[in-house]
């Protein structure tokens, strides 16, 4: 189960993810990001403070989002505050090299 809430900060849209990005959570995430891109939000921050699990399907939705945003001029995607278990999955899969990952949200507040 994944819950997503959004708010603006420093001219960017912050999506706070709460719960698990598993097979069903990845669909929710993909739909949410696509909806925000269609609304013209091209600079996104994913706040992962309360995201406690990610599966391979979840990784795919992150990769999908990154691809879509990079196709948009000036589009950016930043990830913040990954839990150690989630960070480990990013490291193992090599995703930590393709995403801009920040320790916490402090630099965007």
């Amino acid at each position, binding site marked *: 189960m994944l819950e997503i809430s959004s708010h603006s900060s420093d001219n960017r849209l912050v999506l706070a993810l709460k719960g*698990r990005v*598993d*097979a069903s959570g990845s669909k929710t995430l993909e739909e949410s990001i696509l909806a925000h891109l269609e609304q013209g939000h091209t600079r996104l921050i994913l706040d992962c403070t309360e995201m406690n*699990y990610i*599966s*391979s*399907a979840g*990784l*795919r939705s992150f*990769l*999908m989002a990154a*691809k879509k945003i990079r196709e948009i001029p000036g589009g950016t995607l930043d990830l913040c505050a990954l839990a150690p*278990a989630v960070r*480990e*999955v990013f490291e*193992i*899969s*090599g995703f930590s090299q*393709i995403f801009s990952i920040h320790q916490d949200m402090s630099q965007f507040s």
Partner: protein
Amino acid sequence: MRKPESITYWLEARPPWTLAWMVAVQQLSFLGVYLVLSPLLISSLNLGPDHFQSLMSSTLMTAGLGVILQAYGGRWTGSGYFCPLQVTSASFAAMSLAASYGGMGLVFGMMSVVGLTQLACSFLFRHFRGIFSVEVAGLSILLMGLGMGGNGLRMITNAHNAMVDDNYDMLLAATTLTLMIACNVWIKGRLRLFSAFAGMLGGTVCSYAIKGDWSVDMASLTAVPSFRMPVVWNHTFVFNPELIPSFVITGLVLALHGFGALVLAQRFNDADWKRPDMHPISSGIRAEAITNLLCSLSQGLPLTSSGGAVTLGAATGCTSRIIALWLGGMFILMSFIPRVFVLWRLVPEPVIGASMLFLALFTSLAGLQMIASRLLDNRKIIAVGIGLITGISYETMTEFYRLLPPVLQLFTLSGVATGVTTAILLSALFRIGSQTRKHHEFDLKFSERDEILDYLERQGSAWGARPEVVTRAENATWQAIEILIDHSLSKNDQIEIETIYDEFSFSVILHYAGGALDLPTSPPSHEEFLNDEGAVLTMAGYLLRKLADHVRSREVSEDHAELQLTFRD
């Protein structure tokens, strides 16, 4: 095994000799206090000055041999750690009993039973690893620290120091403690290595500065010879079968005490420490056993590994084994110099008390950390909790323990002995019926993710696994279940989860109806991952291979496969 940042000179490091001998002197000044004060406490032995000197010489000689044996004894004897030996009050009750039955000949004769019991324990402990667990080791260290701290405070507050007015006791203790803390916390460099010694020296100098008149102490110092060949009393060794239980229990208590101190040495010397390594611990207890057999033969006091001295080494940043040679040599040398015994007796009680308090801080916190490093289920909480409470309450309930039946009194000679014995007995009791292998079948139509994770967490707690290991197991297991279901690799919704725990690992085996899961050694490319739905499965298999420390996937029969995920604890 990784060097902790706080240690300057680690196990195999060779500090310059100019430092090494000073570190050994610091240890000597701490341990010597125990050695000299202990026989004074055994009032029932009624020792004359000559006998006192002989007892001290023999004890120092064997303590010197013991510390070297402990550090360099080889594979079978000696832990390989710098773990000095000290006299402990745990042996006084049995010794006093033997002295009242048949004099010192019986005391020294029966002391061989202590050594033989420790020898037996060194073999037995290895076979009961489940009982001598991390939390029991942590409890014994915590109680050792609390006992040391309590004794230190008592020495400070109850001291009737003949040298200075009672009002100065607190001042002396405060001076000692402040110097130790200042050198340890704020001063960088080599002085930190001598923080305990600096405090003791400062406190003693302060005491003499206040007192002004040294003539009485000088007289007591010059009254004893400056050189004397160590002499064995020549008591005939006597044995009394009636006293065997008392001395067996003393041996058991000393072995437990040694177990705690040796675990502490392992803990302080390894930044990645996870659990007691029983092989060096058993060898270390054997070194103690041999030392105590030598003590019996040479007619000295029984010895056990000193948690305080181990802490002193760690707190000041020097745990090098080479110090054992220096300290051992000094002990042996001093067994020829009776004047040194008197010097030790001149260190004021509040100074000793403050030193014990300082070292107790490190010891008790190390014990607490060890207990907290494990997930504890209710059985473990009860075993460790009751052990802790009985151990702590010992000092306030001495009357109660004195009224216990004689057999039980033998197990309750000190707070450490009482607490650890209780925890060990309860741990052994709770192991009845507990299994290291469990099966549970889940119907994924009705089972929620949290139900499966709760099950894994319950197993982890029951076996005392580390929380981070259980979390890793939970994440990987759910990753596996998700792909088995989402990619229809399991032909139905029934999955049996088997959990296996041993001292070193936590394994989860998923049994399901279907084929073996592929576990590729490399992840899919980003392009493949985006364009090919099946690449999610490839990535999942790759993640499982990497998330677990060991993974095995196989088809057991035509319609039954299993996936084993093993996590090192």
